[in-house]
C-alpha cells in the first residue's frame, strides 16, 4: 500500500490550505495586491489543469488552448455589451460556445497526429484570434471593456474581491475534482490507454477518435469557464488572451508543474506566475532570467516540479 504521507501529497495539501487561507492573510496584512495576483493565478491554474487533462492524460498536445480563454471571455464580454448582465445566461453561453468550438476543431484536428496536431490546433487558435481582432463592433484589436461583472442576483457579488476569489477557487477545486473523477473512471482509463498504446486499444475495440474527442471537448469547456472568470477578473477581454504565446504560457505551466499529475498544473501556474511577478519586480528584463530558467528546467528537471517531488519519496 502506498504511504499517504509522502512529499507530493504534503505539498498538495499545503497548496490547498494556502489558497484557502490566503484571503485571511490579505485581510490581516492589508496586502490587497496578493489577493488580485492569486485570483489570476487560480484562474490560470484552472486553465492549465484543463490543458493537462488532454495533454498529460490524453497525450493530445494542443497548442491552441488559449482560444477557449478568449471564447469564454468574449461570450461574457459580448453579452455584457449587448445588455445581458446575468451570469446565469453569460456563463452557460461561455461554456457552450467553448464546447462547440472544441467539438468542431477537435473533430478536424484529431485526424492528425504528433506535431501536425500541435500545429493544427495552433492554426485554429490563430483563426479565433483573427476573428476576435475583426470584431469591430466589440473593440477589434483594442479589446472590449466589461463595465459590469456577471450578475448572479443576490447569490454572490463578483465585485467583492474576496467573494470573487473564493468563486475562482471553488471553480478550480471543482474542476480538479471533475478531472480526477474523469481520469479514474472507465472513460479516463480508455483515454489514458489510448495515449500508451493506441493500436492495442483499437484492437480491443475502442473507437479512439470518439473517446479523444469527448475528452477534448471536456477540457475545452473547463478552459472556457476559466475564460469567463478571467474576463470578470480583468473587466476586459481582448484578442491578446488568445495569442499563441498565451497558449505557450499554459503549456509551460503544465510541463513545469508536471504533466499527467492532478496538482502539477496548479503548482506550475503558481510557480510560473509568481516567478514572472517576482522577476519583473527585480528587473525590467525579467524574461532574460525566466527564459534560460525554463531551458534549465527542461534540461535537468524532467517530469517538472511534480517529478522532482516524486523523487523525494524514493530518496
Amino acid at each position, binding site marked *: 500500500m502506498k504511504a499517504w504521507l509522502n512529499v507530493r501529497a504534503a505539498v498538495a495539501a499545503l497548496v490547498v490550505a494556502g489558497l484557502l487561507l490566503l484571503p485571511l492573510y490579505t485581510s490581516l496584512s492589508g496586502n490587497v495586491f496578493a489577493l488580485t495576483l492569486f485570483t489570476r493565478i487560480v484562474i490560470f491554474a484552472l486553465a492549465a489543469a484543463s490543458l493537462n487533462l488532454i495533454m498529460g492524460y490524453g497525450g493530445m498536445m494542443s497548442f491552441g488552448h488559449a482560444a477557449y480563454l478568449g471564447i469564454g471571455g468574449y461570450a461574457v464580454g459580448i453579452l455584457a455589451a449587448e445588455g445581458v448582465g446575468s451570469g446565469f445566461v453569460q456563463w452557460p453561453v461561455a461554456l457552450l460556445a467553448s464546447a462547440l468550438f472544441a467539438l468542431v476543431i477537435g473533430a478536424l484536428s484529431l*485526424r492528425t497526429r504528433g506535431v501536425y496536431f500541435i*500545429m493544427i490546433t*495552433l492554426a485554429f487558435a*490563430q483563426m479565433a484570434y*483573427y476573428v476576435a481582432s475583426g470584431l469591430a463592433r466589440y473593440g477589434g484589436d483594442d479589446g472590449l471593456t466589461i463595465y459590469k461583472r456577471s450578475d448572479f442576483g443576490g447569490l454572490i457579488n463578483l465585485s467583492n474581491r474576496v467573494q470573487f476569489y473564493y468563486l475562482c477557487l471553488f471553480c478550480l477545486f471543482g474542476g480538479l475534482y471533475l478531472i480526477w473523477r474523469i481520469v479514474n473512471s472507465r472513460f479516463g482509463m480508455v483515454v489514458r490507454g489510448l495515449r500508451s498504446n493506441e493500436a492495442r486499444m483499437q484492437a480491443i475495440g475502442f473507437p479512439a477518435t470518439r473517446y479523444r474527442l469527448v475528452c477534448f471537448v471536456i477540457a475545452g469547456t473547463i478552459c472556457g469557464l476559466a475564460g469567463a472568470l478571467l474576463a470578470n477578473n480583468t473587466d476586459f477581454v481582448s484578442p491578446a488572451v488568445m495569442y499563441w504565446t498565451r497558449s505557450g504560457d499554459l503549456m509551460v505551466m503544465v510541463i513545469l508543474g508536471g504533466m499527467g499529475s492532478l496538482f502539477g498544473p496548479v503548482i506550475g501556474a503558481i510557480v510560473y506566475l509568481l516567478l514572472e511577478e517576482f522577476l519583473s519586480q527585480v528587473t525590467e528584463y525579467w524574461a532574460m532570467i525566466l*527564459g*534560460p530558467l525554463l531551458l534549465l528546467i*527542461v534540461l535537468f528537471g524532467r517530469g517538472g516540479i511534480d517529478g522532482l517531488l516524486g523523487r523525494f519519496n524514493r530518496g
Partner: protein
Amino acid sequence: MLLVVEQFLNGLQFGLLLFLLAAGLTLVFGIMDFVNLAHGSLYMMGAYFAATFVAWTGNFILGVLLALGATLLLGIALEFVALRHLYGRDHLDHVLATFGLILFFNDAVRLIWGPAGLALPLPAWLTVPVPILPGIHYPAYRLAIIVVALVVALLLYIVVMRTRLGMLIRAGASNREMIGALGINIKLLYTLVFGLGAALAGLAGLMQAPILTVQIGMGENILILAFVIIVIGGIGSIRGAFLAAIFVGMIDTLGRAFLPDLLRQVLSSAAASTAAPALSSMLIYLVMAIVLVVRPEGLFPANRR
C-alpha cells in the same frame, strides 16, 4: 493590370522569403526531429545584426555579410550550448525550451538595442524602380530579394541533392543510428545543419528588414507562418516547403490586396472593410486546416522512415 502584376510579384517575393525561413525549420525538423520555436528569434537577430553592422561599416553588402556570419555563429553556439542535449527528447520538451529562448531573446534585444525599433536604410542603388515590363516598374530591392532567394533555393537544392554533405544530411534524416554506425560524426552534422538553418533564418530576417521595421517580436508572427508552410508542405520536405511557401506567400499577399474589393461586391462597403483584414489574415490558417483535414501528413510528405 499594373496592380495585379505588382501584387503577384509581391506575393512571389514574400513567398520566397518565407521559404528561406521554412527551409531551415524543415531541415532541423526533418533531420533532428527538433521543434524549434526559437527559429523566429534567429530571424529577428539577423535583422538586428544587419541594422547594426550596416550602420557600423557604412556599407550595405559588407554589413549584410557580417550579419549573416553572426547569425550562423549564434545558431551554432545555441545548438552547441543547449539544444543538442534535447535531441531525442519529447517534442514538448523542445517547445518548452525554445519558448524559453524566445523570452530570452526578446528581452536581450530590448536590453541591448532598446525597445524602439531600428531602421535598415537601403543604399541608393537598391531604391530605384526597375522597368520589368513595358510601362510597369518594380522596386529594385524587392526584385533583388526574389533573385537572392531563388539563388539560395537553387544552391540549397544542389547542396542537399548533389553533394556529399547533402547525401549525409538526407541519410541522417532517414536513419540516424545507421549513419552514426557508419562512422559519420553525426553531432557535427547536426550542428552544421542547425547553423545552416539559422543562417537561412537570418538571411530572411535581414532581407525583410528594409521593408518592415526591425523590431522585437518580429519573428513570432512569421514563425507561425513558417510552421504553417512546413505543415502544408509535409515536414522534412524541402520541395514541399518551397511550393507551400510560394503558395502561402501568394494567398496572403493577394488576399490582403484583393479580398476587400471582392467582399465589397457582396457586402456593404463598411462591413467589407472591417471583415476583410481579419478574413485575409485567417485565410492561410483556413488553407492549412483544409490541407490537414484532407491530407493529414501534408501535401508532399518526406520519405517515410
